[in-house]
């Protein structure tokens, strides 16, 4: 296991209002992640994987308990501070890509960089590098509606990784990829993980992804059921 903790989760509970009552999606999670981990949340549908990723990504807040990400307590962040955290340190890959439909591949990948202080030239270089990682340099000018599902997924991955964030949260990133593409991309992610110490947290039930994970966290009904560590 790596040293310095990048994420500390303590007795995390998340409830959603449902009808008249409430639904408890996370029932008391305790987890720590160190810098440079390549970990995955594995569990059946509805087990709370996306909910947990959203809280780690400061898109949502805990109902009870604490989640500290990069030294910041998620429940105590102001809207501005959480936006800053996402902008500077986090990369999201969504289950459903969420690309900007009217923007080109290049513009989609460039987007997170626009919020940071890069020059046009720097941005161009970084975007092209990211597209290189996912093998999409020939689709720079295409728009999402012209791409296949797998290609969209790869654009989403490039967009999450382009700014080389310290933490990448990937929700089912390979759901629409064929085996060859999945392996290519996972390999790229592993390389980034190795070279830049980027921390990856996946939510998945895809065997191909699970095979690459160095740490497997099994969730069940909003609780950590079991953990497995791979020897490197």
């Amino acid at each position, binding site marked *: 296991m790596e040293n310095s903790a990048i994420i500390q989760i303590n007795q995390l509970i998340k409830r959603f209002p449902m009808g008249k009552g409430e639904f408890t999606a996370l029932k008391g999670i305790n987890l720590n992640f160190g810098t440079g981990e390549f970990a995955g949340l594995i569990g059946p549908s509805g087990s709370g994987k996306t909910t947990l990723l959203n809280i780690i990504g400061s898109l949502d807040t805990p109902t009870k308990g604490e989640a500290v990400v990069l030294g910041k307590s998620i429940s105590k962040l102001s809207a501005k501070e959480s936006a800053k955290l996402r902008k500077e340190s*986090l990369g999201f890959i969504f289950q459903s890509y969420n690309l900007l439909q*009217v923007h080109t591949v290049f513009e989609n990948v460039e987007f997170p960089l626009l919020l940071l202080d890069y020059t046009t030239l720097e941005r161009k270089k970084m975007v092209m590098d990211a597209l290189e990682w996912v093998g999409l340099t020939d689709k720079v000018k295409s728009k999402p509606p012209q791409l296949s599902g797998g290609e969209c997924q790869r654009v989403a991955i490039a967009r999450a990784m382009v700014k080389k964030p310290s933490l990448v949260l990937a929700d089912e990133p390979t759901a629409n990829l064929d085996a060859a593409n999945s392996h290519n991309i996972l390999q790229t992610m592993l390389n980034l993980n190795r070279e830049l110490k980027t921390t990856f947290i996946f939510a998945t039930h895809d065997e191909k992804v699970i095979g690459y994970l160095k740490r497997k966290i099994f969730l069940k009904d909003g609780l950590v059921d079991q953990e497995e560590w791979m020897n490197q």
Partner: protein
Amino acid sequence: MKIAFKLAFRNLIGAGLRTGLNVIVLSFSFVVIIWAKGILVGWDHQAKNDMEQWEIGKGQFWHNQYDPYDGFTITDSHAPIPNEFKPEIEKGEMVPMLFAQGTIYPQGRMQPAMIKGIPASQNLLKIPTHKLDSVTDAIPAIIGEVMARSSHLEKGSRVVLRWRDSKGTFDATEIEIVDIFSTTVPTIDVAQVWINLETMQEKLLLPEQATLFSFANAEENRPAVGDFRLKTKKELTAEIDAMIKTKNAGQSVFYFILLLLAMLAIFDTQILSIFRRQKEIGTYVALGYTRQQVVTLFTVEGAMHAVLAAALAAVYGIPFFIWQARVGFTVPMDTSEFGMAIAPTMYPIYSVGLILSTTLIVLLTTSVVSYWPARRIAKMNPTEALRGKIQ
């Protein structure tokens, strides 16, 4: 903010047809409003110009008693022409006029008329007074087209004119219409009969007297002379301004409806956008935008409709404006009975102020209309938005 403009532009262009329709509607409002306002300005300008050229010159001196709205004052509102005015009159830079109430009897009907004496030799005003030198055995008179129509008089018609001289004695003479002129200034046309000043002075037993003077001297502050006080061009044309103001207020309702339609289209687009683009909004937030920044983005996006509309309006509006300024706008009805100075063809005048203020108003309303629905974004939960679950 700069990014917001960049993204907003991409989003708008990307939205294609919807943007196009909104922009076309809005650009149409732009062009129509600027054009209609330009017509009013042009009308105001032309009305004042015509009034200057046909009736008042650069200003007038009125007899103290004279009140154009009170017919009873006419009988007493005359005085000898002051010596101070004589050099100006001789040079043709001042025109004395003498007014009297009279009655004409065209085809036996009785019709009141204002009889106005004016020197046949004057050149200051456009009224074709030289025709008053025509030799006939009746008194030569000229009238305007509106008067001709209402009294059924034609060129060559003879009609009995009855009036009272200064002693109060009734006098009846025959006049012959020697010319009919066409003017846009109703105050020298409607119910007016023009005859030679000297004839008038003689008939009224008021030699060397006048009611008012129009002059060519553009000097601002001329002192009162004897019984005559100054009426500046500004005072004399104030009514036109007032009329244009009323017209403008009337037109405003029309602008309002026009803008309302365009705004409705944009408002609708914005509301729809916010629902249809929930996932996109969630994505912006996930990528590091604050919700407030997303609100800004959507507002800028909406407001940019106005910018694109202005650009489009310039493309077809400018040639249209230039063309209109050249050929003018012909009112598709008979304007002569409006009772106000309105030419059958009006030439719009556009000022920088007019264009800027219109642009500003459209931009402002568009921004407000865009911001209003966009505020909802600030209340959105990003995870709900990402799930596309907001109703």
